[in-house]
């Protein structure tokens, strides 16, 4: 109740303050130049009973996630708050968000002047690619591992960027037990060295150190309370070429997830690009071993990660390709390589047609990292022995296994070959065709008892514009597989009336399910209204159970049947 009162006063303040403050046209008041802005994002679902699609029964019959950000700035000062509410959380988001219906989990004050920036309170941060540290918010996934503490950014010379921070991480409505302390430095050589200012070769170097502290706890093992990690990175650019690399290392960090082994972790991520007008190619490679780094050794799921390990595969956008078999990073060990190419056939050429044609190809291959266990046993046996928390004779140091980052394993985690061709045929008609072949280790990634899923996916998308304001967009998708739920077909038609209205109707049909009763249709209709930054949509229908991923981090979306409402705006 006290919290609610606080919130109400906060709301009222922000409601009244701007009018009161901006009414003062003249005079040098304290609030001169003060600006308040923010956004809100409300997503609600109503749930009907629908056992055939496996929709969970929700006693409250509804769920809502709402976020309001308010930022106040005045000269060198910035302060912000975020009010969140879950009454109760939308299905598929962690139920622990429901432990408190409404509150202010994020608030900060910041001062910035002449290359110095100090933040007290909550903040997000990323060092390099995030391999050793990344605090971020991905609202759609329910991820928020923000720090609560102090951060200082300072640029002592041109081209030198330093950051230091200390804090606890957000853990739903609580904070982590563990403390994180971190330092990062980045050197832009072309800024730092005057001679290189106009050089065609651009070089930047960076290095970070991250340390966490967590009390030892009651384990029968002697657990290290301080664990240190670090990373080094470079980026080179020369004319049309680019090369980037980052290596991360973590000292031994026994955790629940790695079966309490006293083994160091390592990771490497490299990426090379070449591009010029009409052509671009990117090749990247990644290998990681025991690189899960969290501020609590008991944490699971997506909780309390200090670092971020991006997935090396294409982030698909079409429904069937994106939400049935999406890859999720395996932080305890994986080796992957990815190639990505884009080529635009010139407009006016025979192949390119009047308006040109774009071709994109992507290949992703991800395997296990091979391990040699000390116990001469298979992985499950070795892990079961380690879980007993004893020191084994064959492995007195509890190192668990031996490997190196080049030790490619046989087990296939993921394969994706996809090609996309996009062509504008007339001024008013565009067509895009996509084919994807995917192999997916469903046993590993979704814990299902099944051999790898092999799927062939085809998508055709058309876009017709009628006059300046009307458009019709349609999608036809199919997915063929002999495993898991079998074949799917998906259809969508969308009518747009610019700039305010979008009406969408879609259906997906699991016609190839081996179980006849589960050959179900999932029809949905949605109307969206847009007015500048305000976007409101209302939909009704069935939602298929699936996996929603951003950046290789995923959340299960349970099946649902009912009404959905979404409102977002910025001001």
């Amino acid at each position, binding site marked *: 109740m006290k919290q609610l009162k606080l919130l109400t006063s906060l*709301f009222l303040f922000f*409601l009244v303050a701007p009018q009161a403050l*901006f009414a003062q046209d003249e005079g040098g008041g304290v609030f001169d130049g003060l*600006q308040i*802005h*923010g*956004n*809100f994002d*409300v997503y609600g679902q109503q749930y009907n009973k629908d056992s055939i699609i496996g929709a969970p029964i929700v006693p409250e019959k509804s769920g809502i996630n*709402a976020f309001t*950000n308010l930022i106040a700035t005045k000269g060198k000062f910035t302060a912000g708050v975020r009010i969140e509410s879950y*009454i109760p959380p939308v299905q598929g988001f962690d139920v622990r968000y429901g432990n408190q*219906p*409404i509150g202010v989990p994020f608030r900060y004050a910041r001062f*910035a002047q002449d290359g110095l920036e100090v933040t007290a309170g909550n903040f*997000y941060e*990323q060092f390099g690619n*995030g391999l050793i540290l*990344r605090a971020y*918010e991905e609202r759609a996934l329910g991820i928020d591992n923000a720090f609560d503490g102090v951060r200082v*950014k300072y640029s002592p010379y041109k081209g030198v960027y330093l950051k230091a921070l200390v804090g606890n991480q957000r853990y739903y409505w609580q904070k982590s037990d563990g403390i994180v302390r971190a330092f990062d430095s*980045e050197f*832009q050589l*072309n*800024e730092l060295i005057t001679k290189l200012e106009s050089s065609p070769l*651009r070089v*930047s170097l960076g290095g970070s150190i991250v340390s966490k502290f967590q009390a030892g706890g009651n384990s029968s093992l002697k657990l290290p309370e301080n664990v240190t990690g670090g990373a080094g990175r470079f*980026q080179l*650019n020369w004319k049309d070429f*680019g090369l980037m690399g980052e290596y991360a290392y973590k000292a031994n960090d026994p955790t629940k997830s790695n079966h309490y082994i006293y083994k160091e972790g390592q990771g490497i991520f490299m*990426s090379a*690009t*070449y*591009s010029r*007008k*009409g052509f*671009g190619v*990117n090749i*990247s490679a990644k290998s990681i071993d025991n690189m899960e780094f969290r501020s609590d050794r008991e944490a699971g799921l997506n909780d309390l990660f200090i670092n971020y390990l*991006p997935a090396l595969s294409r*982030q698909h*956008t079409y429904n069937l390709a994106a939400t049935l078999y999406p890859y999720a990073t395996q932080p305890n060990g994986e080796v992957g390589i990815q190639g990505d*190419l*884009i*080529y635009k056939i010139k407009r006016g050429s025979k192949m390119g047609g009047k308006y040109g044609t*774009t071709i994109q190809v992507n290949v992703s291959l991800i395997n296990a990292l091979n391990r040699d266990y000390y116990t001469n046993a298979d992985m499950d046996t070795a892990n079961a022995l380690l879980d007993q928390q004893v020191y084994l004779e064959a492995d007195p140091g509890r190192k668990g296994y031996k490997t190196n980052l080049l030790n490619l394993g046989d087990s296939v985690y993921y394969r994706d070959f996809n090609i996309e061709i996009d062509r504008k045929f007339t001024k008013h008609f565009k067509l895009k065709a996509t084919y994807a072949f995917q192999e997916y280790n469903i046993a590993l990634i979704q814990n299902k008892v099944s051999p790898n899923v092999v799927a062939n996916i085809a998508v055709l998308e058309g876009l017709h514009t009628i006059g*300046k*304001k*009307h458009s019709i967009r349609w999608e036809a998708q199919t997915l063929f597989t002999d495993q898991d739920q079998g074949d799917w077909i998906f259809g969508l038609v969308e009518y*747009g009336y*610019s*700039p305010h209205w979008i009406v969408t109707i879609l259906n997906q049909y699991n016609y190839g399910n081996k179980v006849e009763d589960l050959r179900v249709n999932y029809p949905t209709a949605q109307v969206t209204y847009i007015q*500048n*930054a*305000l*976007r409101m949509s209302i939909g009704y229908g069935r939602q298929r159970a699936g996996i929603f991923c*951003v950046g290789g981090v995923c959340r299960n979306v349970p099946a649902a049947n009912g009404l959905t409402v979404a409102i977002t*705006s*910025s*001001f």
Partner: protein
Amino acid sequence: MRQVFTLLAIALMIATTLQAQDGGRKIPAVEIKAMNGASFNTSSIQNDGNPIIISFWATWCSPCKRELNTIAEEYVDWQDETGVKLVAISIDDARNMHKVKPYVDGQSWEYDVYLDPNADFKRAMNVNNVPHTFLIDGDGNIVWQHNSYQPGDEHELYELVEKLAAGESIN
């Protein structure tokens, strides 16, 4: 449920109250990255007194790419007629940010493109989701914003750019 409605009502009230403010606000200063890895401070986005479009997008966002590819076809004319500049901010994180330059060059975009891999600039600009487009007038004030894209929206955007270029107010 009542709490939800109260919350919604309050949020809407705040939004409408504050929406009137769009006008005096400048682009916040946030340290992001150029595509070649160099640091870039967003306070240095400028266009010699001409209008600026800031468009938040991502390589995994179909409507974003549809919008930017559509504008790309007309961009030379837009620039000639109004002096406008489009600044595209990719919110791709480490998974995809190294694919941004090949994509931008592959599509032959002439925009100024920057990377915001941890969404720092996105947060400072109060963007909920992409695509989200801002219009900045010749004095550097944020004067208009729009969420999402559907075919035809580019005409409305360009009409506003023309007004700004002619020195008219669009609010």
